[in-house]
């Protein structure tokens, strides 16, 4: 008997649709194309963080340093431009610095066997302090005015950061679905010991996912800095980290590794961006926003858990029947 399998992301996409329809009914300002673009633009940084976080979560790790990497790479790009570098070169260097933090995370986690929570928490402190030490905690104005093209430019009427995240998500999807690295990432997250015994290079896999997460956070830093046109040493230290992990988890990425998809994480990020945007448009006081987003995360994860338990039950019934039949 063949049954059409429901995609795992159906839960979060349904919740998003419901939220979107409710907001559209309540607020005329919400249901415009302009606002939809703005919502995606304001959600781009969290989407980038969540994209990188998905890779890490799939291996069963967690990256708490991403918020600080936003601050570090943002200040670095401003700093490099103040040295007279053009913006593409400066951006390239700050992307590299993001990757470097990721590689450091991966190396400590794999070779020194420190739990990811501790390692990334520590590098978070390091990444946050470096720009403050260098600049004396002062913000740096961007010297190269052309840099604003990243944050404020348009491509086919879409803001550039939105185009960037769409392209990045497509690439990430290909990496996870069609490459050896992708298979290895799921394998390491599923069961690290059997992955190792099957000849998978766990070291390279782990270091890669943290490097990817660092790179994604660096993109977040460049977007934030380009939109503000100032390198600000405490950028990205608010709700960004929490919302990015929440986006991935609410989109069905398991905190224990091995399960999840890019589509799910991106749907989660869009859901959170929609809620945040919609509530400002509805003039809901800002104190309510974390509460509502918290409840949405809880309901999304509960729904996934419920589905998982139900499918396990079905599975176990099937096994029981099969074993009876064999007797």
């Amino acid at each position, binding site marked *: 008997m063949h049954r059409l399998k429901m995609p795992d992301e159906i839960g979060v996409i349904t919740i998003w649709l419901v939220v979107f329809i409710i907001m559209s009914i309540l607020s005329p300002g919400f249901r415009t194309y302009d*606002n939809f673009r*703005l919502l995606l633009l304001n959600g781009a940084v969290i989407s980038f963080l969540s994209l990188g976080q998905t890779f890490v979560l799939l291996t069963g790790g967690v990256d708490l340093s991403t918020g600080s990497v936003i601050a570090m790479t943002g200040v670095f790009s401003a700093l490099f431009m103040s040295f007279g570098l053009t913006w593409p070169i400066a951006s390239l260097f700050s992307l590299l610095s993001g990757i470097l933090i990721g590689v450091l995370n991966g190396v*400590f986690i794999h070779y020194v066997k420190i739990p990811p929570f501790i390692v990334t928490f520590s590098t978070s402190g390091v990444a946050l302090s470096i720009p403050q030490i260098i600049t004396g905690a002062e*913000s740096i104005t961007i010297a190269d005015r052309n840099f604003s093209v990243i944050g*404020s430019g348009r491509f086919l009427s879409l803001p550039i950061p939105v185009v960037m995240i769409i392209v990045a998500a497509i690439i990430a999807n290909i990496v996870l679905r069609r490459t050896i690295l992708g298979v290895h990432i799921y394998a390491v997250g599923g069961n690290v010991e059997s992955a190792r*015994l099957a000849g998978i290079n766990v070291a390279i896999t782990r270091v890669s996912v943290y490097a990817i997460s660092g790179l994604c956070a660096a993109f977040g830093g460049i977007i934030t800095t380009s939109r*503000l046109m100032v390198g*600000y040493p405490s950028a990205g230290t608010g709700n960004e980290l929490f919302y990015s992990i929440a986006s991935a988890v609410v989109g069905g990425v398991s905190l224990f590794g091995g399960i999840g998809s890019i589509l799910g994480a991106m749907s989660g990020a869009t859901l959170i961006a929609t809620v945040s945007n919609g509530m*400002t448009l509805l003039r809901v006081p*800002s104190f309510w926003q974390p509460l509502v987003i918290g409840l949405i995360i809880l309901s999304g994860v509960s729904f996934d858990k419920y589905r998982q338990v139900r499918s396990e039950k079905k599975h176990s019934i099937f096994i029981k029947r099969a074993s009876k039949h064999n007797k």
Partner: protein
Amino acid sequence: MKKSIVFLSREPANIINEELYIYGFNIHAVSMNKLYSGGLDMRRKIFSGLCGVLMILLLFGAAATSFAGGKPEQKGSAATTKSKVPLIGVALPNTTNPYYVAMRQGFIDGAKELGFEVDIQIANDNDATQLAQVESFVQKKVVAIALNGVKSGPAAASVAAAYKAKIPVFTVNVIVSPEDLKAHGAEIVTYVGADNFAGGRQIGEQVIADYGKDAKLVIGIVTEPNEIPPIQRTKGFKEALKVNPNVVYAQEVDGNVKPDDSMRVTTEMLQANPNINLIWADTGPHAQGALQAVKSMGRKVKVYGFAIADHPIEELYPAAAAQEPYEYAKIVLQQIKNYLEGKQVPKEILRPLKIYTRGRPAPGEVG
């Protein structure tokens, strides 16, 4: 059908593979060489050792550079007892805000001029950390404490700790809640800070001067509802605009005193209220985010507010009020000097704000 097995052996994996493939197995052979020889362990040890050395070097490097910077606040009480220079404890909330960077410099420079030594502690926005720092000042037997509390309420505990040890406390910028002080049975000597209400009112008056008394203004506000100074500023601003009956307040959003958050909420506020034609931003970071939001959306909405650090006045940012944290620090030190010499000091010193309508605020002047 081919069967798969996992094979562990001391031989290199490729040799086992070659030998066993003949028998029709899919082999996942894993060599155990490394596990037996202890090579992996050795490498891990060397690696950990190297990491340790690297960290120690880094710490030394960092410490060396900060001493090379010659910050006098790093000196402890041992130095004071020898040199007999009076030591003053300074407790600040953070140094991520340019405001406190300027204030810290004011304390360092002011101390040099007046012949004090200062021990500056940064609480990283944590009330408990600040209390511990003030208690350490008590242990060091400082002659006076300058306190910029993290939050108005909890800061009273810090004041009380010093008050019990008979050390005079001077507060700056953040007002310590009078009710909490009373509950602790403690008091402060002098408060020095900006006249926030007046600052907001002055910018409001500037709006009236720019637009007239009957212009139709639809105003969006970027504020921080959790902090007293921004609330006072917004009250002052609204007070000044009462003379114009055509003013409408469209929406208030929370910018968190951070430019990135302010930019996000301002774009959303402008989206929700297309008729907004003026924005009031009650701190420097709020003004910075709001201005960038207006520019990125291509809107001709002017941003009035408190001054963005080191940012010139421009068409869309026509007026700003600047505080002088550098000066406040020096004033506090002067009051401490007067107090120690037995002179009368006032209970409160409220400094007027500098209003800029052209040029850019000087270094150390922040919103």
